[in-house]
């Protein structure tokens, strides 16, 4: 298979959460979250209470995929930043390396300039985290085995999911 699934260990999650926390605070954003390009939510920070982050993650990935398709048609490699302006809330979306998407939701307590500045720094930091993660995944792959929760799974375990 082309690219293996993403595996996130606790130390990676901690690093990502810390970076998002910092970003959300310094950018005076409402919510910051990180999405896998396949549409799965990796982490979210901030006033997430009444936001359906699962749906938002899937739509974000769809959005990035669609604009990526548009870019290709125009001979561009990718549009690495998207910005949607609303009446109250705005959304800033940017790519983190090849794997992830950083989304920041903000209102007039912040500004586009501030968001851009902070996002740029966080993207650099997060790219590093993901590069390290990719290295680690490549290593564990060649070691074979590991601590996957699936090694000892049985048919009954799966059966029980569907009650």
């Amino acid at each position, binding site marked *: 298979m082309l690219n293996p699934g993403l*595996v996130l260990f606790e130390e990676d999650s901690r690093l990502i959460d810390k970076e998002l926390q910092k970003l959300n605070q310094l950018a005076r954003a409402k919510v910051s979250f990180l999405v*896998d390009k396949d549409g799965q939510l990796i982490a979210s920070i901030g006033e997430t209470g009444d936001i359906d982050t699962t749906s938002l993650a899937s739509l974000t990935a769809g959005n990035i995929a669609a604009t*990526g398709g548009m870019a290709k048609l125009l001979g561009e490699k990718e549009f690495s930043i998207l910005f949607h302006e609303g009446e109250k809330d705005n959304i800033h979306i940017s790519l983190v390396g090849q794997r992830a998407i950083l989304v920041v939701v903000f209102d007039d307590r912040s500004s586009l300039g501030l968001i851009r500045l902070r996002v740029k720094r966080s993207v650099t930091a997060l790219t590093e985290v993901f590069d390290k993660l990719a290295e680690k995944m490549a290593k564990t792959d060649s070691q074979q085995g590991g601590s*996957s929760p*699936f090694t000892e799974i049985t048919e009954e375990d*799966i059966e029980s999911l*569907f009650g």
Partner: protein
Amino acid sequence: MSFINYSAREISCKIVYYGPGLCGKTTNLQYIYKKISPDSKGKMISLATETERTLFFDFLPLALGDIKGFKVRFHLYTVPGQIFYDASRKLILRGVDGVIFVADSQVERMEANLESMDNLILNLKEHGFNLEELPYVIQYNKRDLPNAVPVKEMDEALNPRKVPAYDAIAPKGDGVFETLKDVAKLVIMELKKKS
């Protein structure tokens, strides 16, 4: 691609419903949404035209339960079946873990089924996937219609590899969960194989 999160103790997998226009992909998701208890599902999102044809995708997140202390999430997507939405269809296949091909049993849709199957193989290839190596099941939908092609003929035309195939009447729910359950099982077994 699957996503294993040790910190949240969660595993997510992506399952895509593929097939020709009007074969009943969205109807499958709607039935599942209707039947699953509220605490096991998220919101269903349909990006559709005014006439309820899928424009980009339908999305339904399910969290059915735990395996070995990990919450198992399935993210179900449908593609738009209409031929001219091919660019969108291709995008939805990104990172897919399992495919359900929904065929329309009506004799006048056999041509469209075959075309859609070829299209699936081609679009998977562009993502570096080979259908033969992917968890994959078929559903013969609209079995209630009088002009339905006999299952044996459908098998011959659409299922040379003899993967699991299920008869269905999606609006009534016949075959809907059987199909989903089977592909889910194959996806998890694949994760086990890779671990």
